[in-house]
């Protein structure tokens, strides 16, 4: 929620955030990979540079590179 007009305009524009997901399988023939998001949902994205089972940086349906294994926490607010 914002009252700033410029921020409101930015929120209307499409945003492509950097995200981290686990690569489930790699299809080298088509150059795509199936990834699993942290919530369990799956998606097919372009890029086959990261091996199955590893974490990858994903932005806008494209694997950007390998992501490190981070400590997992559950925080309640």
């Amino acid at each position, binding site marked *: 929620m914002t009252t700033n007009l410029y*921020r409101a305009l930015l929120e209307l524009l499409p945003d492509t955030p950097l995200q981290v997901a686990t690569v489930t399988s790699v299809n080298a023939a088509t150059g795509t990979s199936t990834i699993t998001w942290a919530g369990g949902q799956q998606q097919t994205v372009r890029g086959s540079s990261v091996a199955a089972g590893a974490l990858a940086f994903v932005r806008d349906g494209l694997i950007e590179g390998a992501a490190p294994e981070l400590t997992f*926490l559950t*925080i309640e*607010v």
Partner: protein
Amino acid sequence: MALTDLVFALAQAPDADLVFGGVTRITDLVFAQPSATHPTDLVFGGDAREVHTDATFDISATLPALQGTLSVALGVRMVLAGLLPGLSGGLAVIHDNQTQRPTVAHCQTFAQVAAPAESGLTQPQQHAQPARSGVQHQALEAVYAHVGNTPTFATALPANTLTNSQYQDGTQASARLLGQWQDGNPEPRVDLNSPFKDGTPARSRLHGRFEDGLHDRRHSHTDRWQESATHRKGYTGRAGPAQARPLYRDSRFQNAWVPRPGQYVRPTIPVTPSPYFGPALVFACPPLELPNLVFGRMQCASALLGGAPLYILPARYYMTAHTVIAHRLPDMADIPIYAATVSADTGSYCWSLSANGPSSLFDLLAPVAGLPAQLQVTLDGIPFVFAVDALSRSAAFGQTGVLIQGRSVTALIGAPYMVSQSRIEPLDRTAQQLALNALDLTGIDLDWGIGAGALANGGLVDWFVPAGAYSRQGTPLESVIRIAQAAGGYLQSHRSAATLLVRHPYGMRTGDVSGAPWDWSLGAADVELAQDAIITEAIERKDGADINAVYVSGTSAGVLALVKRAGTAGDKLASMVADSLITHTDAARQRGLAVLGAAGNKYNVRLDLPVLTGAGQPGVLDVGQLVQVNAPTPWRGRVRAVSVNATYPSLRQSVTLERHLA
């Protein structure tokens, strides 16, 4: 050496094996150290017990001289015996047990110090002996052959051959030039007979028709008036010289003097009476802030209002007298302005100003040495300081004016006043230290706020950022914004000081109360407003996504956290947030709270309020304050934007609240 020979270079090979690869075998255990004074034991695993050899002290002392009286006579044989005192003294030996005795580790290596194998090199060739064979010259030393040169030609003799000239020297032929004309005779002169001779000046005589007049003939003048005589008239005044008449006036002021030495009276701690819950009628509120007769448990207005530190109480009317003054900093020159609007919101890091005034401001507020002029606007005694960003002067028929646009002075560390810098943090830091590093030498202070505990004011909780996780490029302002946004925070500027405030939209509130929207009903609000004070109210529906959990992740280092709202299944996920500065649980929690707090159904409520600056009254509200509106059904919301409009004679503020629906 010919290439075909197989050469064993090691002279004393222990075995005759052909070894390729040249790994020298260690077959012997060689103690390379020289032998110690005591025999060296080879200890495996046992504790090395060190034996100190006896120490020898050399003591030298001077004994007292032998004294006595001795009478000597000749021929007497005598024996002299004396007893010297024993040698006594003290020897202090200090043994310090508390010294540091590092564990001396003996490394037992499988390799010993290599002893050079004195094998020597056997060279297949011996030293070459110089063969003294001498040099056989095939040529003798050349002998100079004294052979004369026989010139083919002898020195040529000049042939004195006479040159027979066909011509002899010519004789000058003195040819005479016969002129046809001879020089003319200047003698014959032409006699110029002029018809005129030189004129003789004719001295003509001027005969004046007038001769000089006689000067002694004067025309006589007869006055009809004789010289006047001064007529003196006496004057009789009715007033004499004025006399000073001392007039004493009562002054409201007396001469100032240095305060006389006084006496300090220790203030007594006022006794707080315990609340009374009996059936008697108690008038417990001496200031009569609430001049109504209240029956019930809540005895005073402050108790009735739930303890909010700032409030606007209900009243039939609110009477205010406004002052709007502007000064130029630092010389405090008066700046006349007609109207001003001062505003701030969560999306911008600073207060901004829009004001207009006469056209003379165009020169008064011109930038000095490349830096914008600074303007202090005081609204009802609340100072705001701005750097003047833009000045626009307009002129139309009959009126001229200047429009002033300004921002808080913290804008001076952004573009275009500061250039972009790049930096990698090579050491372990906290996020607040990173922000302070970015603001180093800029003159801008940082108020990180207090993110937890009893004194929490909605600031951020500091978190740990390991070395290398932080790298930035940008102006100092952009760096601080980036650090604050990593934890979901936003920046504000102090109203009058050059200080950046870092705040979280749902940060902890005073009294260690959670600032999440679902906990806004707990604890005391920051400001309470009576409904009477609300001039206008506008409500706009502004719903957020229906989510209750979000994954928050670091990139190269840090944590991957599922932040979910307590008491929910965490099944409705927002899209993941990844940020390189989420390196700690605290950062992940605050970032997740910023996402989850904005979710759900909510309103944007815009209230127009008077600016009341009395004791306990809020004045101009601040972004981030929790406001309770005492409508028939009280509700609470946090301030997200403030705009103060000062147009003579009114001074009103417009506040936008974020109100969540249950």
